């Protein structure tokens, strides 16, 4: 998994830079997510590594499928990936591209787990607090999980802020 991320990084960086140059990150985002959706299809996915399906055939097939959705640069990326045998990297490229995009636009994805569902005001307030804390616009995803007993657990990337009763009980158990 780690190696795959390393392989996908140069592609994602290149796409991101190109998107910035041409001011078309939205279009690229659409392009990439469409490609990822296509490859998610089992029939297509099986064909990637199928020795009976040649590169040329795979290319025409995919270009046919994506004809209306991909622009010129998008199909160029597809051609490049097929030529380099890296079609399986697409989901990772999408993921990395989205992180770069979010970072560039000053957004941060945050998962919030809470014991009780937020009211509208408290959600708004919480959002403000998080934005102040991280210094970025927050894209909040809320999950309700009663096993926390109380409080909230905030997860941003690999950073975790544990303000839940469950976490405190665990801490206490460790101390004893």
């Amino acid at each position: 998994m780690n190696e795959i991320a390393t392989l996908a990084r140069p592609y994602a960086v290149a796409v991101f830079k190109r998107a910035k140059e041409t001011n078309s990150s939205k279009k690229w985002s659409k392009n990439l997510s469409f490609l990822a959706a296509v490859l998610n299809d089992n029939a297509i996915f099986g064909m990637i590594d199928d020795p009976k399906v040649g590169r040329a055939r795979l290319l025409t097939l995919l270009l046919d499928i994506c004809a209306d959705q991909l622009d010129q640069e998008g199909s160029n990326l597809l051609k490049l990936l097929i030529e380099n045998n890296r079609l399986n990297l697409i989901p990772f490229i999408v993921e990395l591209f989205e992180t770069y995009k979010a970072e560039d636009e000053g957004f941060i994805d945050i998962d919030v787990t809470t014991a009780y569902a937020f009211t509208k005001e408290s959600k708004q307030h919480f959002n403000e607090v998080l934005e102040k804390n991280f210094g970025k616009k927050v894209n909040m995803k809320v999950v309700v999980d009663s096993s926390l007993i109380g409080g909230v657990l905030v997860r941003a990337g690999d950073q975790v802020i544990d303000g839940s009763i469950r976490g405190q009980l665990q801490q206490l158990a460790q101390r004893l």
Partner: protein
Amino acid sequence: MQLNPSEISDLIKKKIENFDLSTQVHTEGTVVSVTDGIVRIHGLSQAMQGEMLEFPDHTFGMALNLERDSVGAVILGAYQHISEGDTVRCTGKILEVPVGEALLGRVVDALGNPIDGKGPINCVETSPIEKIAPGVIARQSVDQPVQLGLKSIDSMIPVGRGQRELIIGDRQTGKTAIAVDAIINQKGTGIKCIYVAIGQKRSSVANVVRKLEEHDALAHTIIVVASASESAALQFIAPYTGCTMGEFFRDQGEDALIIYDDLTKQAWAYRQVSLLLRRPPGREAYPGDVFYLHSRLLERASRINAKEVEKLTNGRVTGKTGSLTALPIIETQGGDVSAFVPTNVISITDGQIFLESNLFNSGIRPAVNAGLSVSRVGGAAQTKIIKKLGGGTRLDLAQYRELAAFAQFASDLDESTRKQIERGQRVTELMKQKQYSPMSVAQMGVSLFAANEGFLDNIEVNKVLDFEAALLSYFKSEHTELMDSINATGDFNNEIGSSIRSGIETFVKTHSW
């Protein structure tokens, strides 16, 4: 120990009262793979090199490889319960072990947990296992001796406080025996000892512990064990653990002696960890930083000046220097000192005690090769009497070695050559010493004086040790005052010389052996 239930609930209550209900902020990662004690972790982008990582069920690991998309870590201890997908937390701390006086007399593992069944250890302080060695300004030159209690070593290859002296030799040449004798001889000197056993059989460690107990030497000793059955990661960190425990005494203005038995096995353990972490192999498949592995460890053995001690203890201890003397042990294969690890450690240390198996087998024990063994700084630290009298011994043995090879071909030798050879044979005989019987400075002084002044020349070679034993017991009973004064000061002058001489003369006239 009787457990008092109310006491326990009080304790728990207090802990709950003092419990700080703070929100925890930490970084988390996910285990991607577990192989042979090596874990790859996704995430943990904030992890530091050497940081302690927390796995489920109170298992700890150490981050060793910080890569672009992952962190490679070793698990300290059992790793069977860790599986793919487990969460790992950063602790923000470098690995720490307990330090302090409470550890003396105890046997601990590489993380400082007691393994001798004598109950928990009440250590107040902990200290990180990896530290930078004292700088140039903080140091003081080596000028006080550590008496190992072995004639052949103290007279020819003296060790000073703060020195690093390597003990090197094949298997079964008495390397550990020298180390154990050195520990026994520190009884009553105030030098604290740390014995680090790396990759040894548990039974051998138990033997050492028992011998130290028998000779009343466990009370001033800490034993750190990472036995052969423990993970390579623990064998790799054990010397650093021991060093940290020794540094505690050094920084308190006391003297400590640490023995690493042996660093070859630590290098093997480190090689295993490195190869599993996929670091590129170099010579003999060791990683590129195997020199640094030993140099950073041995550089921490040092003598620090009184000013530094005062600074480190916040003015609590003044006017005292601190020292940590290291006796690393290296096992060679077939006497090959030019292998990778032996050459490295020879070049790092301030000298070596070279043990040879053919000497050992011909009955010369300790099997010290006087020609190849050196001490580069110990000379300045020798007591006056040993320095004065030991110089002759070294010379006698050197001349003897030269002549002995050449005398095998010549049928008749001139008078002076024959005398040289006979002197050499007797001095060689005198350098033999039984295990677990370290000698005091005065005893060594008398023996060396007898050899230097030719009192042994008329004694048959196989009677030399008997003569010595009888002589020493005579001096012990008849010249107690003289012996005590030599032991106290270590001085040597004409007056002392003449009283030893007259003592030996009367002994030769009146006693048999």
